């Protein structure tokens, strides 16, 4: 059987080209393994070989995201590999984001891909649901153990074999629950977990409850009569006809709507796209969900500085937390660019 073909991606540092001062270098491809590739080579033995290594500076990658991923994808495809490996990136933030971005793109093209990083690397949260990310130590001293987990999982992916649970394979949990057999029965594990908990020692739950971020409260608005106030809602209020076709449940998008000159929302002009409550009342008068009429009046009376020209709307009905988080980040960015100073969020 011929060896599986592997392409490896590393940054300028691990290619021993240089540190931060060389982070600007554009991507280049070299034959065979380099740097950490040698550790992979040893781990693969006769089963696979690194046919090429692609090197790119971290700054270059992150500053040229769109073009660089295309260039590197082409470089990878030329080698017709069975597997693509990026990193491991350990706790290097930009390197982690680069590894995650490129591995995701390569995997999407049909080539199995894997990377590795420290759980707190920002790239881990960004890409753990897209690609398998082996959980590594936070610095390159963990290279050996990282390679030991990455190589076998990579081979399994290349051979399209069944992938076990995160705890078996060593990848960062990706939200997909996978069954496996533990060494001890559940009751024994429960007793052990309780002993740890009673002793105030560390214990790891087998099923983490869904959690939500906490943010520091913002400082209060100093002068509301000068404030630019925007409306954001998960109540699904949209212009009549739902031009963006926001889904009635599990929304995949949000809408941004111009209310310049709109003094009142009426049954003829606005409606709700939300499928999680009786829409009769909102369809009759959408001000019942987003108070455009009142805020417009207050704007005229000078009680608030200004009502923002746009309001933002999505449907909060079975919508995944990850999607909501993404919408929130995009909306916040847009609000900041419009110098909005306060937001009223309404939910149904």
């Amino acid at each position, binding site marked *: 059987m011929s060896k599986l073909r592997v392409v490896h991606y590393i940054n300028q540092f691990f290619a021993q080209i240089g540190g931060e001062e060389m982070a600007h270098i554009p991507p280049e491809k070299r034959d065979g393994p380099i740097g950490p590739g040698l550790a992979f080579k040893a781990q693969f033995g006769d089963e696979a070989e690194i046919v090429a290594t692609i090197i790119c500076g971290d700054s270059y990658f992150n500053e040229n995201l769109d073009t660089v991923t295309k260039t590197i994808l082409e470089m990878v495809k030329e080698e017709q590999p069975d597997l693509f490996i990026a990193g491991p990136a350990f706790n290097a933030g930009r390197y982690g984001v680069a590894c995650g971005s490129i591995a995701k793109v390569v995997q999407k093209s049909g080539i199995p891909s894997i990377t590795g990083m420290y759980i707190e690397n920002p790239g881990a949260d960004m890409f753990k649901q897209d690609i398998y990310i082996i959980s590594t130590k936070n610095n390159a001293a963990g290279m050996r153990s990282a390679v030991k987990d990455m190589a076998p999982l990579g081979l399994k992916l290349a051979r399209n074999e069944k992938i076990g649970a995160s705890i078996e394979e060593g990848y960062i949990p990706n939200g997909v629950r996978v069954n496996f057999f533990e060494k001890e029965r559940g009751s024994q594990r429960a007793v052990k977990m309780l002993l740890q908990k009673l002793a105030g020692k560390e214990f790891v739950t087998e099923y983490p409850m869904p959690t939500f971020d906490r943010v520091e*409260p913002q400082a209060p608005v100093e002068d509301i009569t000068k404030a630019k106030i925007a409306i954001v809602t998960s109540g699904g209020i949209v212009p009549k006809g739902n031009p963006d076709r926001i889904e009635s449940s599990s929304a995949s998008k949000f809408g941004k709507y111009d209310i310049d000159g709109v003094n009142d929302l009426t049954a003829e002009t606005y409606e709700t796209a939300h499928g999680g409550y009786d*829409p009769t009342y909102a369809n009759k008068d959408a001000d*019942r*969900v987003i108070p455009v009429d009142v805020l417009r009046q207050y704007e005229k009376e000078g009680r608030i500085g200004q009502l923002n020209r746009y309001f933002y709307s999505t449907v909060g009905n079975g919508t995944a937390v990850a999607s909501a988080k993404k919408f929130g980040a995009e909306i916040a960015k847009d609000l900041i660019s419009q110098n909005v100073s306060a937001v009223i969020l*309404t939910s149904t």
Partner: protein
Amino acid sequence: MCTVTPISLTVGANRIVPTVAIPHPLGNPAYTMDEELELRKELVDKALKALQTEVYKQTIFE
């Protein structure tokens, strides 16, 4: 501004104004138009007051 305040607390909102009902948080179809507008103004006033209030933890503005 939400009707089910425990959910807002769970998801981490810091300034919370309780509203009327899920299908009409800022209105009440049982009222006349004028009454309803008055109700909505009261709720928006609460929201504006919340925005101008310093908070150090999650706070419900009843």
